[in-house]
């Protein structure tokens, strides 16, 4: 009805729309938005079905992190991740890993068996990828606590996870699974000789943060004391007191250290 006005509007808005469509996506900013817990920004900026593999991976991660975290939205992310996981590059490994995470952790009803299959498939396909290695850590934990081979109470409960551990070559990831096998050994009532070496192995690699590190030092000292390994007990008690002298546990540990020293003076020890 007003062709001149429409043409004028088109001339005005058209370049803006074109500029938006053609604007290169700032992937760095999108990734930063995810680091800063702003997945909605990513979903506004990126499209599900267009862009590079990196862009689509970030879109899928944004979809996983955005609210509402419905199973429908997660399935939408999974569709993109499944497609991306077909390649052989790092993006494929990362996509396959995230897909497994959806089943283990994000769906309303987790499917541990399916997650385990996906971790295993990734490890078979790209065994040296960091994401496959990280997936093996998660697989090891599922074998400790959740998968069918963890239900036989008389079996060696740590062996399945130890088999997974042997496939992990990255030191920090080995440390993390070693720590968890050690802790699980306690919860699952396994013999101390089976789990204590894992705790010691975890301690040998630095970088454990938070309470876990402090607990680990006390733990190795106390468990060694219980096993009559007074030399190791003394080593860890001394370390604890040097690093955490003001902790409320220090009083008890001082007493334990004195007891260990008395034992060693009498000629005890492992």
């Amino acid at each position, binding site marked *: 009805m007003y062709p001149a006005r429409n043409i004028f509007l088109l001339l005005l808005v058209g370049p803006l729309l074109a500029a938006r469509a053609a604007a290169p996506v700032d992937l760095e900013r999108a990734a930063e938005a995810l*680091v800063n817990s702003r997945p909605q920004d990513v979903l506004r900026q990126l499209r599900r079905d267009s862009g590079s593999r990196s862009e689509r*991976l970030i879109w899928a*991660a944004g979809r996983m992190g955005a609210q509402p975290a419905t199973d429908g939205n997660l399935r939408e992310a999974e569709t993109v991740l499944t497609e991306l996981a077909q390649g052989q590059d790092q993006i494929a490994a990362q996509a396959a890993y995230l897909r497994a995470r959806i089943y283990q952790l994000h769906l309303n009803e987790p499917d541990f068996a399916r997650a385990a299959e996906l971790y295993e498939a990734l490890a078979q396909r790209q065994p040296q990828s960091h994401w496959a290695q990280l997936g093996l850590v998660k697989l090891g934990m599922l074998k400790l*606590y959740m998968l069918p081979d963890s239900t036989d109470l008389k079996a060696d409960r740590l062996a399945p996870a130890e088999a997974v551990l042997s496939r992990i070559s990255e030191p920090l990831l080995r440390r993390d699974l070693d720590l968890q096998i050690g802790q699980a050994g306690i919860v699952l009532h396994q013999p101390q000789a089976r789990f204590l070496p894992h705790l010691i192995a975890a301690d040998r690699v630095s970088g454990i*943060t938070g*309470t876990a590190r402090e607990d680990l030092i*006390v733990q190795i000292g106390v468990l060694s004391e219980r096993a009559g390994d007074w030399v190791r007990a003394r080593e860890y008690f001394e370390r604890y007191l040097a690093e955490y002298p003001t902790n*409320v*546990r220090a009083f008890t540990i001082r007493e334990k250290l004195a007891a260990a020293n008395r034992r060693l003076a009498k000629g005890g020890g492992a």
Partner: protein
Amino acid sequence: MKKDGKRRLGLVLLVGSYLLAVYWVFTRSAPVVSSRPVTIRIAHWQIEKGPPDGVDAIIKRYEELNPRVKVEQVLVPGRVYNQWMRTNLVGGTGADLIQYGVWLDGLSDIPARYFEPITDEMLKPNPYNKGTALEHVPWVQTFTDGLLNQRVNAPDPGQFYAATLTEVAVRLFCNRELLRTITGSDRTPQTYAELRVVFQQVADYAARTGKPVFTLAGARDNASWLMQFLMQGAMMKSSQRNDRHGTLSLYAYDELGLYLEGRWSYRSPEAKAGLTLMREVSTSMKPGFLQSMRDAATQEFLRGDAVFIFAGTWDGTSIRSAATFPLDVLRFPQLTKADPVMGPYFFGKFADGGGGTTMEFYLNKQSAHPKEAVDFMRFMSSVQGNQLFTDHSGWLPSVREVKVPADIAAYLTPLDCYSFGGEYMMGMGSTTAAAVFRNLYLLTDPRGSVDQFVDAMEAEMPAAVRTDLRKEVTNRAIIVRPQDVRIMALAALSRRGQADGSLTLARERQESSQTQSEALMLQMSRQLDLAGPVK
């Protein structure tokens, strides 16, 4: 002429009003545009005498050092704090820095949902400690306890979330005059057995004189602290027996899991002995004390109606400044092996403080000025900032190298007692705590008994423990799920060239702490599966 006079008067009034307005604007009013472009708010419930002055002193100095930033202190009464925090966080109007405590009822999901970890900052030195002995010490290690409590309660075991302002302990405050009047001596009880004698002397005095005097000032809060202290001490052997991890410390989720496995209950002899002591101390408080809060107990003590008040050092400034009588501050008299109730289960002296620091401030994820908020956190927990807090609040510091004034030195707790963690009453989870409070009258009422309380609790615990353990799993899931996305994004940033090492380090830390949290989730889920539904 008359008309001219009116005009002149009007003009004079107009000019006068204008001049007055100009004077007011330039001398009295706040500027229309703040000279400080950034405003951050710090909110807490410590409205007792002391802490607001301490925080004000920190703010004043901080604003001198940082002319760009204005800091507002938001004081919220404890009675409405929970609702205030939840409403403001949901509405996106929460303060930048918020005090939070893990024991706050019904708020266990808050840290996971609304608070941002500050791990990277904690592992670097605090710049405000420049020129002090702590100049090169990582921020976390500048706290007297290495942020032990905060780390134990962190929603993610591998992360740091909060900075603390003070160290707390529980103490027995004594009205020396009243003690002398009743017992004929200034000597304070040194053991629980001696305290029992005072219980009897005070009861006799009250009966003889008709005065409503009690040994202990009573209120739900003070009684809970004392009962928890007695119960933890009573359960030390049980805690040690159940310390299968060898960490010398039971966490709340450990206690819940151990309960499901049948490793402890209120029916155990140790627990019953602890409950017997709790009932005994409750009879030395005024009847109906469960209905009143700690302010009522403080008033009772200050009126001279109670010889002692068992209170946290957080009430110390209020009590000392308002007391009109000589005051002694002492550690609670400990039990001994000869005690007729606790003797068979006695392990040793139980820690009455342990040097843990608290008044924890968390960074709101929605803060518009996170950098400035963290910077203020650094200042308040620097040697200078924390000294200002201590000097103006009368509360203990949380930071090493801060000088403790002589009048509060009695609040310091030497490391001379055992502690194996384990709360057993209010600290396991909000559902179990609610059950304890709901049934506590059965223990403290003159017609109640230990057995009545135990029966009521054991009827509720199986369901309450499952609920709290499920909450632990859910709260960890809230933390762990977004970490997948963050880990992926950190890897993407590294790939795109921002490879200064810090991104890789951040990703590695995130992966490691996520694995720790996930393992706990799996462990707790398994415990719940094995326990099955309540029979």
